[in-house]
């Protein structure tokens, strides 16, 4: 499809600007001025509408397709939450208004919402305090590992290592590295859990923190987590919970009660806000009492009289990760979602997610090799190793599913599973949808290698040359000379 720049025609306009109702000001000097306007497209409003409507039709989406993308929790999100985020009382609110003297009185609604969501997330995680500021899960991890650093500094110690299992999300080691830590990786045992003997041998007086995903990226809950936490704490290290999979234990386990000191939550996964083609999300962090003083600023506090105030200073805080209070529109959606569900609804969402994942695990294991053949929580991981013997890769199966109108599972993650197919159906899908998916996966298992290698054939483009894209970089539409 042509780009919007290729549709540009000289002199064509989309939006008419209001006529100026003030006298023209003396122009800027030539030295400071742009000699020519930026070469933005010259298109009519209809051109714009057709272009983006057609582009949208090229996407799979949760609203249109089953999207069992492991680790990403592509559940259906209630429209009421979107509606709430679009209320003018929220969208038109300037973030610096509460920083004017007396300004907090003009935005009590928004400050109250933030305070209440902080309290709700503290309750659900069992932690003492929450900051909603981190703008994504990875930024929550950065905040968390910086809190680890600040806490050790306050203890008068400098530690060097963060321990992560080899099943961890790539963001865990990357965030630890950004916070200045070296990363030690621990292997996974035959049970799909972190090898405890190897973990013990790596743990030491130089360990700053242990980052565990709970349940892990294979979909397994580690009942040894309390023991691991105890060992870590005895060594003077902190326990960090990557809460990307919190949806599996919502209403069942509070991370603080199994030994974690810090947890980040991905509101766009567990708390049902749409993913927007890759963002925005939100990655709040919750911490135990001794760590509360290190949380990012500003935070919202509530006085005894029920009035909410901004707290702008705290001597031990790690500082700010964003200009304001987090991705507020995402926070509104998450808050609405929690109110719609209630505790029972949240707990049921975890149960149904686990039910759906195990249902698929049982029905697919005849065709695909289970990476670890044991009950899972919210997601199950298969290996296309049997298919690989016939020259079929996980990628080929993924592309074939696209032809059937199904978004593929996550492929090639976790990294330790060869030809991994990681499936997370989520709680919002019906049994009928799951059965259709099973049929599609069986059809993929039965299809000829040639058909699979050619897939997808029903899309506007067939398989794209990624090697060429990386070698001959073409990252923007060239400007006509």
């Amino acid at each position, binding site marked *: 499809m042509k*780009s919007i720049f290729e549709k540009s025609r000289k002199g*064509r*306009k*989309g939006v008419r*600007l209001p006529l*100026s109702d*003030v006298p023209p000001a003396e122009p800027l000097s030539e030295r*400071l001025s*742009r000699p020519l*306007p930026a070469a933005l*497209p*010259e298109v009519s409003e209809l051109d*714009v509408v057709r272009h*983006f409507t057609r582009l949208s039709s090229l996407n799979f*989406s949760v*609203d*249109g*397709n089953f999207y069992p993308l492991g680790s990403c929790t*592509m559940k259906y999100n209630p429209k*009421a939450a979107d509606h709430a985020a679009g*209320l003018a*009382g*929220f969208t038109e609110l300037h*973030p610096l*208004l509460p920083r*004017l*003297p007396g*300004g907090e009185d*003009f935005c*009590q609604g*928004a400050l*109250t919402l933030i305070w209440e969501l902080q309290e709700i997330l503290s*309750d*659900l995680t069992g932690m003492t305090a929450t900051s909603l500021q981190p*703008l994504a899960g*990875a930024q929550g991890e950065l905040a968390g590992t*910086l809190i680890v650093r600040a806490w050790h500094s306050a203890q008068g110690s400098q530690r060097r290592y963060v321990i992560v299992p080899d099943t961890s999300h790539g*963001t865990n080691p990357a965030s630890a590295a950004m916070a200045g830590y070296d*990363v030690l990786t621990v292997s996974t045992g035959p049970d799909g859990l972190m090898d405890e003997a190897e973990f013990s041998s790596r743990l030491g007086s130089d360990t700053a923190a242990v980052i565990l995903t709970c349940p892990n990226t294979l979909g397994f809950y580690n009942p040894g987590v309390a023991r691991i936490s105890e060992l870590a704490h005895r060594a003077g290290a902190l326990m960090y919970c990557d809460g990307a999979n919190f949806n599996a234990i919502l209403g*069942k*386990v509070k991370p603080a009660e199994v030994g974690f000191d810090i947890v980040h939550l991905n509101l766009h996964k567990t708390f049902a806000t749409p*993913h*927007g*083609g*890759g*963002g925005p999300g939100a990655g709040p962090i919750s911490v135990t009492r001794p760590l509360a003083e290190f949380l990012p600023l500003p935070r919202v506090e509530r006085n005894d009289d029920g009035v909410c105030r901004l707290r702008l200073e705290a001597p031990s805080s790690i*500082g*700010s*990760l*964003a200009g304001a209070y987090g991705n507020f529109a995402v926070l*509104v959606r998450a808050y609405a979602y929690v109110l719609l569900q*209630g*505790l029972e*609804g949240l707990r049921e969402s975890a149960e149904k997610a686990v*039910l759906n994942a195990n249902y698929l695990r049982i029905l697919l294991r005849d065709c695909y090799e289970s990476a670890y053949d044991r009950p899972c929580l919210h997601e199950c991981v298969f290996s296309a190793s049997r298919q690989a013997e016939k020259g079929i890769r996980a990628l080929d199966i993924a592309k074939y599913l696209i032809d059937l109108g199904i978004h593929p599972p996550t492929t090639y993650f976790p990294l330790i599973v060869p030809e991994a197919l990681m499936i997370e159906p989520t709680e919002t899908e019906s049994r009928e949808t799951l059965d259709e998916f099973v049929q599609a996966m069986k059809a993929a298992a039965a299809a000829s290698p040639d058909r699979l290698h050619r897939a997808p054939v029903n899309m*506007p483009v*067939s398989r*794209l040359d990624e090697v060429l*894209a990386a070698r001959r970089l073409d*990252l923007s539409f060239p400007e006509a000379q």
Partner: protein
Amino acid sequence: MLAVIGAETMEDLFSVIPPEQRASPYRLRSEGGSETEVLGHLGQLAAGNDTSLISFLGGGFYDHFIPAAVDSLSSRAEFVTCYTPYQAECSQGTLQALYEYQSAICRLTGLEVANASNYDGGSALAEAVLMARRITRRSCTLIDGSINPLHLAVVKTYLSGTDGEIVVVPPDGCRSSLEQLIANLDDTTASVVLPQPNFFGSISDFSEVLCQARRVGALAVSASYPMSLGLLRSPGEQGFDIAVGEGQSLGNPLSFGGPCLGFLATRRSYARQLPGRVAGATVDGEGRRGFVLTLQAREQHIRRQRATSNICSNQGLCALRALIYLSCLGREGFSGLARLNYDKAHYALDLLTDIPGVSPANRSPVFNEFTLRLPRPAGQVSSRLLAAGFAAGLPLDGFFPERSGELLVAVTEKRTSSEIERYAEALRRELVG
């Protein structure tokens, strides 16, 4: 379904969790609310925010008009409810939009490559600073202290875990201190960060700083307010190596400060040091053009602790909104809009500084924001004007305690001449009586 699994109860599915690890009671209400109840409650919270104020607040977040087409198109479920376009063939809509967004950012900034967006202006700036450290293999960052303090705070947080010095050159009043910036540039400087306009609204001619940066081998990073790029010479044309900024103004509502949009553009030769996602054009087996996420070998899901950044998302929907916004305005519309902002701000500046005791604090040209010096503490004046229905601007002492008489005033195209006049009258009444 339980029978298929071989479980008797839902609880069996969670048997792996030992009883002593089960959650203690929660405070959260057990029952969920109906849609009517919940939306009623949210409606009340929304109504607890006064958005009827006539606002002259900026400070990095701006109240610009958003064409209806932006909301209408960007709220299509196919854009809203999809995820990261790793499976390119069923994500061509998102991927092409990101490629076009990158193209639009390149054209605004005058640079050759852009990423698919960062969280916000502050984190984009932090990533640019880290990127410059990787490229130059130097660790010192020189920052013009007239930069937005909210963005500076984010940079400091991002860099707090790693070695490397940040030198902040204090502003000279509302001006960027060009002499001090030049004096502090040396062969340990990885990058010099220069805001345009700066936090106080001043526009600077940085050409001598850029010359010195080139001489000592430091990269020059422009922190730009994108709306001003409708009038101002682009960072690329001025010789900057990296341009970043807060893109909220481009078709994204204020939403109490989030979500925002961090844009980041650079020279082609630094493309492989970009943080985060990048969309690229390629071809399929039949030679048809298509788009993919490219240069993934830089990213955390592959390179883990050696990745160029930990970022694992982008602001996809906000970038899409920016692209639709820029397409609606187009070439002439965008520069016309910048001009409208400029004219209105100057009209307001003239009226407000006509009030006895009020003087302009900027000695340099301004775009759509400027600093006033008031005869009384700005916080006190602003709070009195709030009661009269005006968000008069940002008192600077909230950020710089010694600047208690200064007020930062932003005027976008949304403020009518009559609103500007009423504001000037209210300020005159407050100060003169």
